[in-house]
């Protein structure tokens, strides 16, 4: 009984301590919550105000469901959604395996691995707009570096119109995205691998596992929680990319590289090359639709990938 009493007292003490801790946690979270509300939730709600309006920044006219009807029949927007999926597919197809392979190689502590890690990470810290400008020169049809290299290696006989060819522009956009993003994911994977205990690798070694077996049966399963997060970040990131595309191809040629957030940006902020007025109301509606699309994709991914957490 005494023991029970003791446990009871202890429980009460804990509860009382927990209450203080809860309050402290809440107070510590409060600034972040306020910032979240002001900087994220409120702007999102602000958008909803204009989805039924024609709003050019000066005058707002209520138009009922007109924006919604326009959205349903807006071929350019729906093509931009298709292009977004295409872009995300290509990007993820290459960037995740590449980042993982590089991370595994660098994790073996080969000579100069820290230097390589820095070099591979460097594109991440370069502004995507600047990268877009630089790649404009790299992808130039005449005197472009990429075409010169491909021609000197006899891979192609005539220069490829990377930025003016509708059949190759997505490849150009994807190359830029991979160059700019894989260092970041590589770093996530490297950090994840650093947290895997050496004991596991030693056990595998004692059991006679070779490098490939170690990767598939030790590293990859142990990395799965990290992989789940990285994949989710990569998916949402790929769906929201537009800055570098705006500078590199501006959605062209013939809207072939137009992705949905670039289209929305043009609606809300206008375009230097367009004579059309800004359409904040319609852009607001498209933002909501885009958010729903990204949300659905993320939810499907989380459903499919729910087992990745259970591996460890």
């Amino acid at each position, binding site marked *: 009984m005494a023991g029970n009493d003791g446990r009871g007292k202890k429980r009460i003490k804990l509860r009382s301590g*927990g*209450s203080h801790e*809860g309050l402290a946690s*809440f107070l510590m979270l*409060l600034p972040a*919550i*306020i910032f979240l*509300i*002001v900087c994220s*939730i*409120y702007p999102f*709600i*602000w958008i909803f*105000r204009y989805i039924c309006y*024609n*709003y*050019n*920044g*000066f*005058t*707002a*006219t*209520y*138009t009922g469901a*007109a924006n919604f009807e*326009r959205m349903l*029949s*807006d*071929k*350019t927007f729906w093509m931009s959604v298709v292009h977004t999926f295409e872009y995300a597919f290509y990007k993820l197809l290459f960037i995740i395996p590449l980042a993982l392979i590089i991370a595994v190689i660098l994790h073996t502590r080969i000579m100069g691995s820290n230097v390589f890690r820095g070099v591979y990470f460097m594109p991440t810290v370069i502004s995507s707009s600047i990268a877009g400008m630089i790649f*404009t020169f790299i992808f*130039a*049809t*005449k005197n*472009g570096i990429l075409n010169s290299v491909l021609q000197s290696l006899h891979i192609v006989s005539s*220069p490829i*119109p990377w*930025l*003016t060819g*509708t059949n190759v522009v997505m490849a150009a956009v994807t190359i830029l995205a991979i160059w700019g993003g894989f260092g970041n994911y590589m770093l996530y994977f490297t950090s994840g691998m650093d947290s895997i205990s050496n004991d596991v690798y030693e056990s595998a070694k004692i059991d006679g596992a070779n490098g490939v077996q170690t990767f598939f049966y030790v590293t990859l399963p142990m990395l799965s929680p990290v992989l789940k997060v990285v994949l989710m970040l990569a998916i949402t990131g790929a769906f929201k990319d537009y800055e570098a595309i705006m500078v590199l191809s*501006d959605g*062209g*040629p*013939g*809207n*072939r590289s137009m992705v949905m957030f670039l289209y929305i940006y043009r609606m809300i*902020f206008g375009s*230097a*090359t*367009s*004579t*059309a*007025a*800004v*359409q904040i109301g*319609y852009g607001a509606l498209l933002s909501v639709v885009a958010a729903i699309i990204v949300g659905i994709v993320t939810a499907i991914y989380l459903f499919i990938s729910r087992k990745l957490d259970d591996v460890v």
Partner: protein
Amino acid sequence: MKKKLLSSILAATMVVSLAACGSASSDTTATTTETGDTQTAEADTTEAAATTQTASGDGITITMWTNDRHDMDYIQSAIDTFNSTNTDGITVEFQTVTDNYANQIQLAYQGGTAPDIVTGNGSDISINNFADTGIVIPLNDYISADEEYQKVNDPYNHMYEGYNVKDGNIYSVYSGVRSGVRVEYNTSLITEEIPSTLSDYVALAQKVTDEGAGQYYGIGLTSSGPFGRLLEASAQMSGIYPYDYVNGKFDFSGFKEIVEAGKGLVAAAYPDQQGVDNMRALFAEGQFALWSNASQEVSVFTNQIPVTGFEWGVAEVPTLDGTVKGALNMVPQKGYYILSSSPNQDAAWKVISYLQSEEVMKSYLENGYCLPITDYMAGIIDSSQTGRMVDFATQDYEDVYPPTPSINLTGDDYGTVLWNAVMGYVDVDEAIEDLNTRYNEALEADVASGTVKRLVIKDYDPLHPSKGTAEYLSE
């Protein structure tokens, strides 16, 4: 219990923030939709601002914003002179704001931090928005009381409905004009005269490309608004315009021939279509022979990207059949607007009157920042000082087209779509049908909802579009 408490606090925080934000946003809505109330509210704000300014010292500070960078140093030096010589205690603070200019002004106006004066070229300051919302004030009274200003700037003969004028109210007076598009060409690569028909022009471009054999090309095309750099100008001079002013609707059917001719230009063009400055640099390097742009190229090819390896010539834009049937659009430059929120509007006018005085304007025009818009200034300036600007002198067939209704268009604008047709990404007939449908559907919907008014000019003359009588209809 703890969870309930946390949820309640969270909910309360959200409600409070949303309510606070909601009230702020209601105010914003009021400023954007109820023009009359806005002005009253703003007047209160400006009174407060005036009190602050007067209390801060004896002098009056006038803030001026511009989106022009090319003449920034000249305007700053003129302002420095004004600041040190004026006897009214006025000090002008001059700022350059180039990104999202119109939106920045509107946001500053709503936030009570707007400047006293803003400048604008063409329709940078969209008068239908800025005048309707009461952000800028009419200058009629100031102008009518200032005879010297009238002599130099000839405001009553340069009233462009929808640009600087609305319903008889003059909101700004332009200091000059940017010419319509001209052809600039490399005289080392082209020794013959530039053809007057578009088909011969295409043939010339192809001939130079063939001669170049991959070393140089006939023509350069940019990725930045390519349709407007030559083909749209050619269409205008051929009497083809996207808007039917007489019937008050959009009509793109005349563009088919222009698009077809454009395909020949693409075939003869330098392989890359890059940004304007990149293409200018390639022209200056002799990589292609034909380029086209307006009078800003004088400053570009003289100072910014100097052409040193060859002489560059200037010629008129070719038309479909070699005759001019419509006006070439030119853009009026450097209008000065006074904001209704300014507590010192009289002082602001004094600043404008100085910056558009004969002394300042003469030197401004002789420096080649733009072409004179008035006969008086054209007669006063020493054209030997303006350098190559003389090659871009205003032609009889140049005029300012009244701005077409600013509609809420679904999808791409006509410049993009017609260029896509030139490039072969879409069929030209389908492109024209699509543009006619989308533009007119948007126009009808916006007129019906009251977002825009239909512009009709019954006595429209394609060679003098600004001279007609504009009517703005609600149906």
